[in-house]
């Protein structure tokens, strides 16, 4: 076989391979041009009949042809495979612009989110978290907090009772948790007390018989009102923004002396908004809870989680927090 014939073979084979439109046609072309009965195979068998020089020359040409055809076949095979895969994938197309057809994970309630955010500010400042019962003894809820039995706050207009005789109440604040902490632990101590509390208020847009507090207590040697202010400033800035200031105004609580209402700077008519009550722990409370007021001093504060949540998130009706409307839940 001379070079011209080999070139003719090449042209014919490459044309057939290129023309194969599907894997079957390609296989037929491969068998025809590269198979055992192909002209190429026959020519290779005939090499033995040639003299050495001729055999080397023609053999090299046939090998080159075989290599070229094998490459051409592989390329065509890949082309056809890729086209088939493209076709299949095209057929599998999904419209992924639609909704994900699986339930989304649930969301923590806004009150939980805000409570955790508040608690986390204080744990970052070295406070621990203390808990106590919601149905509480009047002694812990009132007596040890300097609120005597005839105090108006203990009336049924303000406090929900479980048992008036045994003086068991729905706690009106989480201060009894402070009491329990002081009764069982030695200073120095720093705790925040999150939890639900209760008042005898009918449900309306601004009142709820159940609401959420985070109270705090720090008792150690040398605690001053500056420490109270610094702690509350850190809280206000964490929750409302780093540009905030706090203002303390004289007030009265039975369990603190001096006492203060605390305002945070706010875009309101007066420039201030009342957010919590606080003060230095009254020495009578320390004494009642077994702590020596000559040696230790402390501060306490009480934050209303609903109030913070409503201010920050534009909630205008406190009932929305307890009525669990799906639209409300999904917003936070």
């Amino acid at each position, binding site marked *: 076989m001379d070079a011209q014939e080999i070139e003719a073979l090449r042209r014919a084979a490459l044309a057939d391979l290129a023309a194969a439109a599907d894997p079957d046609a390609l296989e037929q072309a491969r068998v025809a041009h590269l198979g055992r009965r192909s002209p190429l195979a026959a020519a290779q068998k005939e090499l033995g009949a040639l003299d050495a020089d001729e055999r080397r020359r023609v053999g090299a040409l046939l090998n080159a042809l075989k290599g070229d055809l094998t490459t051409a076949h592989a390329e065509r095979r890949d082309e056809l495979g890729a086209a088939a895969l493209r076709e299949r994938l095209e057929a599998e197309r999904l419209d992924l612009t639609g909704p994900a057809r*699986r339930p989304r994970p*649930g969301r923590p*309630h806004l009150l*939980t989110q805000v409570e955790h955010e508040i608690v986390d500010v204080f*744990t970052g400042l070295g406070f621990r*978290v203390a808990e106590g*019962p919601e149905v509480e003894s009047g002694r812990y809820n009132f007596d040890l907090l300097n609120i005597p039995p005839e105090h108006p706050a203990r009336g049924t207009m303000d406090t929900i009772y479980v048992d008036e005789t045994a003086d068991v109440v729905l706690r009106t604040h989480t201060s009894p948790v402070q009491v329990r902490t002081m009764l069982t632990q030695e200073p120095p101590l720093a705790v925040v007390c999150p939890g639900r509390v209760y008042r005898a208020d009918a449900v309306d847009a601004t009142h709820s018989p159940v609401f959420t507090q985070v109270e705090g207590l720090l008792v150690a040697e*040398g605690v001053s009102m500056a420490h109270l202010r610094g702690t509350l*400033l850190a809280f206000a800035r964490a929750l409302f923004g780093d540009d905030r200031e706090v203002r303390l105004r*004289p007030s009265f609580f039975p369990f603190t002396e001096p006492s203060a209402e605390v305002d945070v700077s706010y875009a309101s008519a007066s420039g201030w908004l009342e957010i919590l009550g606080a003060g230095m722990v009254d020495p009578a409370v320390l004494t009642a809870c077994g702590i020596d007021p000559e040696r230790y001093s402390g501060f306490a504060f009480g934050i209303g989680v609903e109030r913070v949540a409503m201010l920050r998130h534009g909630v205008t009706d406190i009932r929305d927090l307890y009525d669990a409307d799906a639209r409300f839940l999904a917003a936070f």
Partner: protein
Amino acid sequence: MRLPLSWLTSMVDLDLPLDVLVERMSASGLEVEGVTRPGDGVRGVRAARVLHHEPHPDADSLRLVDVTGEGGDGIVRVVCGAANFDVGDVVLHATVGAELPGMRLEARTIRGQVSQGMLASPRELGLGDDHQGLLVVGADVVPGAQLDEVVPLGEPVIEIAVQPDRGDHLSVRGVARDLAAVLGTDLRPAPEGAAAPAAAGVPVTLDTAGVGAFVAWTLEDAVPRPSPLWVRMRLAQCGVRSIDSVVDVTNLVMLELGQPLHAFDLDRVVGERLTVREATGGERLDTLDGSERTLERGDLVIDDADGPASLAGVMGGARTEVHAGTRRILLEGAVWDPAAIRRTSRRLGLVSEASTRFERRVDPDGAAEAVARAAHLLGVTSGARATAATSTARTEGAWLTGGTVTASARRIADLLALDLPAADQAALLERAGCTVAVDGDGLTVTPPSWRGDLARPADLAEEVARLHGYDHVPSELPPLVRRGGLDGRQRLERDLRAAVLAHGFDEIVTRPFVGEDAFAGVHPTPGRVLLANPLAQDAAAMRPGLLDGLLATLRRNRGQGRAGMAVAELGRIHRPVGDPLGDALDAAVGATWRWQGPDGLPLPLQPRTLGLAAYGGAGGEGWADDDALRTVEDVLAVCDELARRSHLPALTRRPVERDGWHPGRTVLLELDGVEIGIAGQLHPRTADAWDLPERTVAGELLLEPLLRGPAGSTLATAPALVRHPAVFVDVAVVAPEALAVADIMATVGEAAGALLEDLRWFDEFRGDQLPDGHRSIGLRLRLQDPDRQLQDADADAVLTRIATAVATLGASLRT
């Protein structure tokens, strides 16, 4: 307490714009709740005398009234709806062109009769609340006078919230005095009072230490009449009703000086002598408000010779009340034990201006001055003449003694973090009326009689801070006193909540009250923690479980057409002390979850609990697939994951039939044989009763065993990750229907032994090839050995053991 600005400025130098004053007050413990201007907008109202009146010809309830301003300005006819006046009275006439708040007067025809303006009621003029009758003025106002020439209507009235320990803020003078201290200005001289008569007054016996000072003056020749307009204005500005010139003076002086006063009609005081005592209980007394009161032991009462005549410090008695014919007055000013008044007032539900003041402690040294002031004003307004005086007192009451307080100036400065030397602190306290002796660091302070709240060094510290200004307290973070943070159990609680939410349940918070019926979940019980004073009948008890709140939430949202919802609540449930739930929890975790009051008083059970409820809605957001329903599996998956996160063994499931639940689709969740949860589908009837779809599922799980389990205190440890290839073995267990998959899987797993790495249920089959009442359960085992590659023989050995094991359950392997 309402404070007319002009009244304040008559007592203290105030040279501040109103808004600055309000700001300073609020920053100093005189919290301003608002500023009003009663009578603002009233113009063109004059006094006019009634000359004639006759019935309106066409309206029974109206009168035609002729009035004149005198001075030759003619007679004007007005149509009027009131009837509390007569010919000769002087009334207030809003003439044509006059202005009242919200209206400008014109000549108007009423039922065919032209009315030239109107005759005004107190409320229309900002001079009281009364809207039924006209304001009939006294001789102090001459006809023709313009109202705004007689009294300054529309001036600012500042209302403050009074702190419970600052009873001295319940008077204009008390606030003026405090403002003088706050602002560092001067208090003006006290208002004029009558000189005490030398003659001895009615005998008074004080039989109780619940009284301090008791001053009683005898006044003769009084004639009760309408009060002058300036008195009515002051009372109206302070929100007190005008009665007559005698009672009004007692109220005016109370507002002015803070000392409640009481006027008896002396001719009705039997025996003309008084005894002050504690009630023995059972006495009856008709009070001024027309109620009959039964006294209890400890109430303070004032007797005349006929028995109780006045409920001391709270309300006078009707029997000795001043009336139009009263001529002789016994004017009483006394000071009472705050705690006793608080008890009586609270018990009777009777809160008066007097009791409000006595509860907060009235200046024990102020009674004589107040009585003298009132006697003077009664002379002016009612023609009364003081003729005799009695003044007596008891001094034992602990509430009376201010006493001296000693304090360390250094400690006060340290507490406040203020660099204030002893002398500066003394100067501040002196501004508040204290007498202070400074000895080095020591302060010896005698508070003024009106400051019962200054009794301890802490009280002095607050006063020093207040007068110096809270704004001066610096801001500084406290040193870290201890390492902070959540403990293991608290972290686990957050972790469990996150796991619940990850399963697609939204967290809700509901009000934890229930009515008579409550849908029962774990450990059903009729026991309730009942409320003694519930806010509503359907909120009479604390919730015994969480499911009521959850189902109500689903109902409310379904009512709005929501196709599905899955909600969870983590909160406390409440049961009485002896409830069986307590025994179960004790068995599961010991008694550490219980709460006690003082002296071991057991408090109702209030364990932390998880509740879950869901219907529909498994198709995802924005996808309406009516067939994608939540099932009990959604609830079970959450409970299983919580147990895993708590490092507890898997909760065992026991099918159960309970009221309200689907009998074939409900299981108890048990830990070591103790019921700690329930999960299931609602009974169709229950679902229907709640207006919920039939496929509504719910569950409840007590969290205390999880929170108090190993995860709260110990760390998870890493498993060995075997790298030899795993061998998979599928088995088909043919078992009677009654045999639970849980039991089959447990048996298969146990038989597979140490090689078993994972066991899954992949198939359930029923058919003719199986014996009647049987099903085939397909299970896939993944076997691995840490030390070697497993061979076919290993799998065969496992299969043989499984075949033997399931045979003991009455099941067999299908081959």
